[in-house]
Every structure is written in structure tokens, then in C-alpha cells.
């Protein structure tokens, strides 16, 4: 794969597209949680497996999910969600009160749902804009500590990442969209068309 093809224009376009799609995703999440959701400016990077691993924070402080997507472009979305505020989010999302006893299953359920809302909405937003078709598979819980990103499977990937903050619950998530190597040319071609 030749990454020189990803020009500054490509990166700027991706950021712009991502900003719109992530904005939509934040809006959907806000609707689902009935809480205000803010997001950071999206970033577009090239990353090696080691660099991607470095993007993950302290494993004791975060939940992680991973969710494959396939179609015209394929890859995986990895979502990092703070453990802090997880219970409040689960309560909001599942419509449970503290006294209902929110357990690990409830928290995992809501973590997976939040991940799916963000990745589903953002991928859909992105695809719509560059007229590509993609579908997600179900998200699953992930532990980068137990299953680190393999270092010999690929060398560089396009990484799109953005953080969402639910201030009222002190809950923060980071969505990292990683494109698989064979999806690169499709994205570049679609971006060229878009530009």
C-alpha cells in the first residue's frame, strides 16, 4: 500500500467528512441518552500497530469494544470508553435507576450499545457523503491488554479518531476507525471523486 497517495487534501477532506458524520453520531447519542454530547475535532493519522496500541489508555480506566465493518470499505472500529461514568450511562440508556442494581451485564450491554450508536452513525454518515456502501457487524468487548494488535499483520493503517464527552456523566469515549489495507484505495478513490 502506498500511503504517499493520501495527500494533505485527502486528509483535510476526511477530517471535514468525519466532522460531519461524527457530529451526526454525537447528535444520535445525545438523543438516546437525553444528554448533551460534545466532540473533539477529528484527527486523521497514519499508524503502525505499535502506534495504535499507544493510543489506548490505561486498561484499568477504560472499557474497549471492537466492531468490524465490511462492504465497499472495510476495517474495524475500536471504541475506548471511560469506566468512570459507565454506570450513569448504563442507567440512562437502559432506563434503570441506581436502586435497580446496575450490574456488569447491564454496563457491558450499554457500553456495546454506545459503541454501536457511535460507530454505526459515524460510518453511515461517512459512507453517505462519499457514496460508499458499508455495513457493521455486532460490536464485542475487547481487551487490548490480553489481545494486543498483531504487529506482523499490517504495517500502516489510516486511523480516524475522535472523542465524545458526556459532561453530565463525566463519561468520555474515543472512536477509532481503522481501515483495512485493501480498503485504502477505495477510500482514496472515493475521496478523489468527492474532491
Amino acid at each position, binding site marked *: 500500500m502506498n500511503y504517499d497517495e493520501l495527500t494533505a487534501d485527502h486528509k483535510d477532506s476526511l477530517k471535514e467528512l468525519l466532522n460531519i458524520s461524527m457530529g451526526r453520531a454525537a447528535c444520535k447519542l445525545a438523543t438516546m441518552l437525553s444528554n448533551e454530547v460534545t466532540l473533539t475535532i477529528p484527527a486523521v493519522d497514519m499508524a503502525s500497530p505499535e502506534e495504535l496500541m499507544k493510543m489506548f489508555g490505561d486498561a484499568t480506566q477504560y472499557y474497549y469494544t471492537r466492531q468490524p465493518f465490511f462492504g465497499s470499505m472495510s476495517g474495524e472500529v475500536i471504541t475506548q470508553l471511560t469506566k468512570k461514568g459507565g454506570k450513569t450511562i448504563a442507567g440512562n440508556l437502559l432506563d434503570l435507576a441506581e436502586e435497580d442494581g446496575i450490574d456488569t451485564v447491564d454496563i457491558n450491554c450499554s457500553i*456495546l450499545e454506545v459503541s*454501536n*450508536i457511535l460507530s454505526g452513525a459515524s*460510518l453511515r454518515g461517512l459512507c453517505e457523503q462519499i457514496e460508499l456502501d458499508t455495513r457493521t457487524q455486532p460490536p464485542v468487548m475487547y481487551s487490548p491488554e490480553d489481545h494486543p494488535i498483531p504487529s506482523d499483520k499490517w504495517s500502516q493503517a489510516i486511523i480516524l479518531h475522535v472523542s465524545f464527552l458526556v459532561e453530565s456523566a463525566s463519561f468520555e469515549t474515543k472512536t477509532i476507525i481503522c481501515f483495512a489495507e485493501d480498503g485504502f484505495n477505495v477510500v482514496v478513490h472515493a475521496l478523489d471523486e468527492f474532491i
Partner: protein
Amino acid sequence: MKAKLALSDLLNQLSIAVTIVRSDYIIVMANAYFTTRSGKTKEQLIGRSILDVFPEHARLVKRKIDTAFVIESACYSSWEQSPHTLPFKSSRQVSGEEEKMYQDLEFIPIHSQGGGLEHVCVCIYDMTTQACQQEELAALSAELRRDQIELKQTLSELKQAQSQLLQSEKMASVGQLSAGIAHEINNPLGFITSNIQTLDSYFRNISTVVTSLEKLIDDSNDAKLSADKKALMERSQLAYVMEDVSDLIAESLDGSKRVMDIVKNLKEFSHVDDSEWIESDLRKGIESTLRIVNNEVKYVATIETEFEDDVPNILCQPMQLNQVILNLLVNASQAIKENGVIKVSLKKTQDEQVQITVKDNGAGIPEENLSSIFEPFFTTKPVGDGTGLGLSVSYGIITAHNGTIEVDSELGVGTTFTITLPIKQTTNVAEKVEG
């Protein structure tokens, strides 16, 4: 029309349960697999709200359908979080033990020709086989973890038992050796003592004879004889010799008595004959141990004892208990630099137990070491000075007596070991004794 029929036929052929639900939750289509597994007829499904048909998990189903509409993308429910979202019967009705189907659900929003979202397709995947396998694996894994913990514990106990066995065998050998030596010393010591006593008796006779002869010479009024006797006595220093021989014999007798005491203590301490369970007087055991250890302790500490009178004999292995007391006393003396006091007490408690305490005013044990002192090979002594087995062996011996050994220590103040032993032993020990 044909295409519609073909699609409907295809949906009915699928081994996935599929239903299409309107945004008002009304079921508009359900395939054959869906009706079969749900146990509902098409009439019971079509045109009715999915929330009413399956009220048990209506909240979750509603949320998922709503979410799919809001995010305009598929949303999911996994069997790991919600194993039986819809009350479907297990597909393994003959061979499977489970009654309900484990399911993964997918809620896919469907765009109408006008581009709007009006329907959600709900796909129910049968995950029963995978779920059961995973649950079996999880159970197996938990069992393996339990076994591993048990194995580790057994290994640790085995190591401890091995070290205790080694130490016990070593002590038994030392005991046998000292008993053998004591026996060997005892024989010559017996005739040495007997000979000295005979010598003492003979010498007393000789002394009486010499005194009588002197008196006879003095009373004979023979001046020359008296003068010769006097000269002879002065030359031979007989008066001094007679007095000194008496002292030498007395000292030798005293010495042989002390050797006899040492031999007796050695025999009592080793108790080779008492390695089995017997009714024993703890006081005697402690006293004999104190005599053995006295040489090591006397330069750094004085020993105070406080033995209550009403302490009954207990069923025990006296030699083993002596070894415990010896270990505690040696440790206490090593914790003291000089002018220390080691207090040993023995009493009967209210609850049919006896209590032995060994208290010293030595350096004390740091708090972080207190939890480890009974572990095998734990030592703070310089390499070569301690094996780290003394207290672990002591712990093992006391445990074998169904007793407890506890430690209380404060740095710079001292340490107290408290041993509590039952007066009457449990059935197990009693059986061993009878056996």
C-alpha cells in the same frame, strides 16, 4: 409477483428467524423459522405489536428498534448480555438439555423506496451450540482454576510436610544419637562413680587408721618414734595430702554426679521411647528442655518460670513438644543481646486446654515478617545461622497436636509465643494411640 413469492419462499427456507416490524412495532412479516421457534401461528403474529406478543423483554426490544431508527444503522443484542431475548424454544429439542434458544439479535432499519425509514428487520440467530460450548468451557476453565489453586496449595503443604519430615527425622536421629551417647557414657560413668565411692570409703578407713596410728605413737612416750613420725609426716606432707585427697574425692563425686545429671537430661530430652503418643507431664518436659538450653541462654538472659500446680498430664508426643520449646527458647535467646529475661509459663485454661507461653524482652519481630514466620525456610538470620525451619516445624508439631501457636510481638519490646494444647485429644489422635 413472482419475485415477491421467490423472496418469501427464500425467507421461509432460511434457518434464521426473521421478522419485519413497522415503526409502530406491528409485525408485518415473520418467516417459517420464526413461527416454528416462537411457537406462534402467523395469525398470532401478523398485525400485532411485537411488544405485546413478547412482553417479557418488551423494553429491550423497543429500545433496540428505536435505536435502529434513530441511528439509521443496525443495532444488536448478544446472547452474552441477554441470552434469551425472545422466548424461543431451543433448536436442540431432542439432544440438548437447554429449553430456551440462546440468541443474537440484529435490528436492521429498512429504507423504503421513498428513502424514509418505516420498517426494521429483526434477525434472530440461534447461538445455542456456541453458547453451550462457551458455558461448558467457562465451567471447565473455572474448574481448572480451582484445581490449579488446590494443586498449588497441596504442593505447598507437601513441601512443608517434607521439610517437617526432614527436620523431624533429623531431630529423631539427634535424639537417638544423644540417647545412644548417654547410654554409652552411663556405663563407664557408673563404675567410675561406684569406684570413687568405694575409694572414698576406703580412704575414710585409711584416714581413720592413720589418725589412730598417730595417736598410738604419740601415746607410746617414745620420743624418737614420735620425732621420726613427725619428720616422716612433714617430709611426705601427709596432713595436706590426707585433706586434699578427701577434697579430690568429694569434687570427683560432685563431677560424676553432674555428668550423671547431664546424661539424665539428655535421655529425658531425647525421649526416644516417648516419640509415640503418651500421657505426659508438660512441666517435666519444659524443665528438662530448660536444663539443656541453659548453657546457651545463661550468658544473655535469665529464665523465669511460672508453672501452675493444677496442670494435668496431656496426651502428646513429649519429645516433639520439647523440640518446640527448645526452638522458642533458642529464638528468644538469639533475640536478646544482653541482660534479657525469658519468662516461661504453663497454666490450665478454663476450656480444658493448657497454655504454654514463652515471653522475651528481645528485639521483637517487624510487623511485615509476622505473617511469614511460620512459613518454611523463612529466616532473618544470616546465611548459615538459621535454616528457617524451626518455627515451621514447631507450627507443624502443634497443629498435629490439634493445638495453636500464636505470636504477639512489638519491635524493641519483645515477643510472646503462646501455645495452646487440648488436654484430651480428638478421635483421630486417640485412634492413632490405640492403633
